[in-house]
């Protein structure tokens, strides 16, 4: 390679770096786009972000409402749900699966599109900065969600006794722990 070619390449590289630095400084939205790409689960790298913070409703099989954080459209035509959580521990809980299962039913009911039987929970920890950890969650079937709703209705009506939390570490922080202890 000749010396002028090396010089041109060098100038081009310096220009590109300078342009990138200026773009990051001057365009605040650009960093958001980069972060959105960076925190995507690998499966969704080729997917298109279709909805962000959108509320959906459906009346079948029962009246449901859900606000989804993000919905991605994969090239195969399948929708994938992503739920954002801000918590101390980098993990997804059973309650996340329930929430996303309802979202799946509502999204499928309103849009008529196929929704994947799994979703992702993006967890942001207090010391994690702008990096989120993605956790794949298998969603419940429609029948399982309906059964859970029936149990909830029975518990709230006083017909069935409620269970204690399976996740005991949350009990010390609960505002109702005194009531709960008194009830036995």
């Amino acid at each position: 390679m000749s010396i002028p070619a090396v010089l041109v390449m060098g100038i081009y590289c310096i220009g590109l770096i300078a342009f990138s630095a200026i773009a990051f400084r001057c365009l605040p939205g650009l960093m958001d786009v980069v972060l959105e790409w960076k925190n995507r689960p690998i499966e969704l790298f080729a997917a298109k972000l279709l909805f962000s913070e959108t509320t959906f409703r459906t009346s079948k099989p029962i009246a449901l409402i859900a606000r989804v954080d993000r919905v991605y459209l994969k090239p195969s035509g399948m929708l994938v749900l992503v739920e954002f959580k801000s918590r101390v521990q980098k993990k997804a809980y059973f309650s996340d699966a329930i929430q996303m299962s309802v979202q799946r039913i509502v999204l499928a009911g309103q849009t008529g599109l196929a929704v994947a039987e799994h979703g992702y929970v993006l967890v942001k920890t207090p010391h994690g900065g702008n990096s989120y950890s993605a956790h794949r969650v298998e969603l419940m079937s429609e029948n399982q969600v309906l059964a859970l709703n029936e149990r909830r209705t029975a518990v709230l009506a006083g017909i069935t006794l409620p269970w204690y939390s399976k996740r005991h570490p949350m009990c010390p922080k609960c505002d109702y722990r005194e009531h709960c202890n008194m009830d036995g």
Partner: protein
Amino acid sequence: MHMEPRRRSTQSPLSATALAQFGKCERLALYEHMHGKSHSFTSEGARHRGLIDHEAYHRQGLVAVAASNKALIGRWAAAAAVFRSIWLWCRGKIRGAK
């Protein structure tokens, strides 16, 4: 502990959050159904932090949805994200080697 009176009617559609909370702790769901949502200092602080994080996440999503229609910006951002990840990975390797 400040309590809000129960406002939810039986006719309103079931929300995903309500069912998720029931799955988390059935007893807590029942107490909140009877006495209303609690607003203690600790839960309010956590909720506030969560809202701030959620707002930032939402802003990223809105910008990304807008940028997805502009192929050049989208590709540039994707390339920048990849380069940044590689750079961070290399930096971690170098620091780990020291």
